[in-house]
């Protein structure tokens, strides 16, 4: 072997060794985070995982949700993939002088070179746009990052080195086939006009080839400690992602005898998937741009959270690797503060925006659990809520025996009456605390009852036997209290053999549908907008009366982003005579939270500006007289927002059911 080949081999082995060492530490750190993975198995349904890998990694579907930045990324990503073939060819050439891929056939080889030339230029233009974005446009979510500048410089250096190498090579070894490398050809013309001889050109080509080798290897060694780690981790993270959108909170086994701690107090309490999430973050800032908390000056940014958790992981490297978990420092500290964790509305705008399927909320809610269960550390207002749920089975201090008072004069039957009469009903109408006690929401409950009666569907309620789902406690970290209520409710439902449930509350909906199966009940749960849409479709009710209003629709997070239902409410509105729908830009999965989710409904909003006011302002853009909603808490938040804007005379908030009730006979 030639000396130069040996030197090259040594450099490659050295760099690879260094890379392997750095990567192995990341791997061992991921293994040292031993907490349970949210929503279970990430190795099942292989076919679907392969499919998501193709669509989202190779075809960059999630990345392309953002047009310009997405296209830029596609150019760089595919460019790199294609050019790696040339890089490998050059490596082989260094080890076995004279090696070339030309054996694939003349025209095939020429085509390959043409493609590579094209992609080199594509990468360069992509990187150029990236530089422009970072240095000139400077979108807020991107932030400042020296790391990013280093990466972009390395990338453009690689491409320029290739062009330089090719151009000198063309001059050193003229060949008709070189014409396909049109740009390199053009540059080589410049060298020629400057009087560069073939000998000099040959030396220069070798020099740039080596320069390229070193850049590639340097890049490789740099990756594990940079945000560019995502080139290695985004693909596995996409593969191991949670495949479907709906999800529930992980059930904590509170009876586990060996459990010394609940929730995530330290980074070691998170799971390998969480750690992989941290590695996969590209720091693109899409989550931060979408976050209602961040956009109203709260200290929470999902991007910063992921970044800070990664810092916590690295800061505790020694303790983690030596297995001394008791020496791992708490997550909460100067960067991740209590206010960061309590600011989240669980809207999942971050998760829906993330191009690499990071699940930010799981971490936040696992940390809340630790704060509440282990340290009783939570905003003071929640104390009252917990106490009320415990004593009155409702987050408000309302008496349980008044839960069915709203049905007075309506002839709504309870499951107990149904069971006693030996009859059967199709649906249990789960009313929820708001629908039972809040005057505004009671009107929605009544509208739904009226619709159900018009349709002839048989239904019943639990009445006094219904209790809070425990969801306000669960999302505020009080898993213990929540589980008590869930179990009591599940026992009642099982007792009546309930199979199908309809509810007008998206929070109850998500809990019953996606969470209660962990507590021993399989329910078919349907949101009232879904049921109404179906009743209209099948002709069981007919919206024949005109509702002469301009309406805009607000997607609730728990029906929208949590459960992917954007159509049912819209088909309903479309079927109402004379009603005109004006959509706003921030709708469907890009809709903004009203501010009530994640138990924020029960906390005071002391920091920054009000989320509900910001959302109201967006909706007012539609210039509609009615804001249609599907959730009791959205209705409260938006009504309050409209009051703040002093527009109560001009704009009303209505539940979709109320509109339908008006439109039907």
């Amino acid at each position: 072997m030639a000396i130069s080949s040996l030197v090259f081999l040594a450099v490659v082995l050295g760099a690879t060794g260094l890379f392997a060492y750095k990567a192995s530490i990341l791997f061992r750190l991921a293994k040292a985070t031993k907490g349970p993975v949210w929503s279970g198995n990430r190795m099942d349904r292989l076919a679907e995982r392969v499919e998501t890998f193709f669509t989202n990694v190779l075809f960059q579907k999630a990345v392309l949700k953002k047009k310009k930045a997405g296209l830029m990324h596609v150019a760089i990503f595919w460019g790199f993939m294609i050019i790696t073939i040339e890089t490998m060819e050059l490596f082989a050439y260094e080890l076995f002088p004279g090696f070339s891929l030309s054996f694939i056939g003349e025209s095939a080889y020429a085509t390959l070179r043409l493609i590579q030339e094209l992609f080199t230029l594509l990468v360069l233009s992509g990187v150029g746009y990236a530089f422009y974005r970072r240095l000139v446009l400077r979108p807020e979510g991107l932030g400042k990052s020296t790391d990013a500048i280093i990466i972009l410089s390395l990338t453009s250096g690689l491409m320029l080195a290739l062009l330089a190498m090719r151009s000198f090579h063309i001059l050193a070894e003229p060949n008709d086939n070189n014409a396909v490398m049109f740009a390199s050809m053009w540059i080589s013309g410049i060298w020629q006009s400057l009087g560069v001889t073939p000998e000099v050109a040959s030396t220069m080509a070798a020099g740039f080839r080596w320069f390229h080798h070193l850049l590639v290897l340097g890049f490789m060694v740099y990756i594990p400690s940079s945000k560019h780690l995502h080139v290695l981790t985004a693909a596995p993270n996409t593969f191991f992602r949670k495949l479907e959108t709906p999800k529930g909170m992980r059930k904590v086994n509170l009876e586990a005898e060996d459990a010394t701690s609940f929730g995530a107090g330290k980074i070691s309490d998170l799971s390998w998937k969480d750690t992989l999430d941290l590695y996969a973050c590209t720091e693109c800032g899409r989550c931060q741009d979408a976050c209602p908390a961040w956009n109203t000056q709260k200290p929470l940014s999902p991007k910063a959270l992921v970044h800070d958790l990664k810092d916590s992981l690295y800061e505790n490297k020694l303790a983690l690797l030596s297995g001394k978990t008791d020496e791992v420092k708490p997550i909460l500290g100067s960067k991740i503060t209590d206010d960061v964790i309590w600011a989240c509305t669980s809207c999942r705008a971050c998760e829906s925006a993330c191009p690499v399927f990071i699940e930010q909320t799981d971490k936040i809610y696992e940390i809340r659990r630790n704060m509440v269960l282990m340290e009783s550390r939570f905003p003071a207002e929640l104390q009252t809520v917990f106490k009320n749920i415990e004593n009155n089975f409702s987050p408000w201090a309302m008496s349980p025996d008044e839960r069915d008072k709203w049905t007075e004069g309506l002839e709504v039957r309870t499951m107990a009456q149904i069971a006693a009469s030996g009859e059967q009903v199709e649906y249990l109408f789960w009313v929820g605390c708001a629908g039972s006690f809040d005057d505004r929401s009671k009107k929605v409950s009544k509208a739904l009852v009226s619709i159900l009666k018009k349709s002839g569907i048989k239904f019943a309620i639990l009445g006094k036997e219904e209790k809070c789902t425990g969801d306000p406690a669960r999302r505020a970290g009080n898993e213990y209290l929540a589980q008590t209520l869930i179990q009591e409710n599940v026992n009642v439902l099982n007792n009546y053999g309930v199979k199908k449930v309809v509810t007008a509350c998206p929070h109850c909906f998500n809990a019953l549908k996606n969470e209660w199966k962990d507590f021993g009940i399989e329910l078919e749960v349907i949101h009232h907008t879904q049921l109404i849409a179906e009743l209209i479709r099948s002709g069981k009710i007919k919206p024949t009366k005109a509702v002469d209003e301009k309406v805009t629709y607000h997607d609730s997070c728990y029906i929208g982003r949590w459960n992917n239902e954007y159509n049912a409410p819209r088909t309903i509105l479309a079927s109402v005579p004379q009603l005109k729908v004006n959509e706003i830009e921030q709708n469907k999965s890009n809709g903004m939270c009203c501010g009530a989710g994640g138990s924020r409904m029960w906390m005071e909003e002391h920091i920054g500006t009000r989320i509900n006011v910001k959302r109201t302002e967006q909706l007012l853009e539609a210039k509609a007289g009615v804001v249609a909603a599907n959730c009791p808490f959205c209705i409260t938040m938006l009504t309050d927002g409209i009051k703040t804007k002093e527009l109560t005379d001009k704009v009303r908030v209505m539940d979709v059911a109320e509109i339908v009730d008006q439109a039907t006979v």
Partner: protein
Amino acid sequence: MATVLIYAEHKEGKVKKVTHELISEANRAGAESVVFVAGQGLDAVNKELGEMGAKRVIAAQGDAVKFYSNEAYGKLFVDAVKSTNPSVILIPATAQGKDLAPRIAALLGVGLASDCTKIQIDGEKLKATRPIYAGKAVADVEFVGPKPYMATVRPNALSVGAASPGASAAVTALSLDTGALKSTVKDVVRGATAKLDVTEANIVVSGGRAMKNSENFAILEKLSEVLPNSAVGASRAAVDAGYRPHSYQVGQTGKVVSPTLYIACGISGAIQHLAGMRTSKIIVAINKDPEAPIFQVADYGIVGDLFEVVPLLTEEFKKALG
């Protein structure tokens, strides 16, 4: 004779009435009433405790305990428990007591009946009555298991015995050895108001968005001046609009009050507001909208403009109360 250990709450050299209620209850039951008190410059307080009928006082006095702190006071109280070996511990169900009692119970590993409205000390035994289901029902609880038996008792729930001027209690100083503390209170900064807190008032006059500005709250202040032991509260809308500071907010995310009389002026009665005042004994609502939900919980409703009604009310109360 059974010993009852009582936590004394005091402010600016004055013992709070609820402490007197607890001492009287212990004495009525024929138990030895021992009072734990912590703070600085306790002479006046100790004297007052003696006049309230306390037999003994365990005083933790010094700079280190100048301000209330859950951690330090908790440790010292447990020391007092060790030296007096009581069979019953009574703590006021005030903000401070609610903060302290669970910690003491946990440190002692004993049970706790919170927020009681009646207690019955029978020799070494304790029975307590506490409201449940938002006051719709009451539960009688009896203690089993290890002593001491602990309860927190609501202010104004028990009657006070006559004070005996000149009587004094034997005062024992408690060593201030709290061991290592995780936190210490350096200073307490009070909000601008020196007025009665809405949670302590017997009568609350609240204003809502309809007040329109902070100056207009003066008419509510005037009404409050006429009514004894009263304070002015606000809805969140009024607080958000900057008419009043957050500490006045009544409701789900503000203060929860249950005064004898609650007068809601220009408040619609959103459930978030009701959550903070529903349990008031008598609710009076003044609102110009007869459909306002507040009227559903009100015992007396006045449909009208609050700017006319409130001054009239003030005048009438002035006459009636002399």
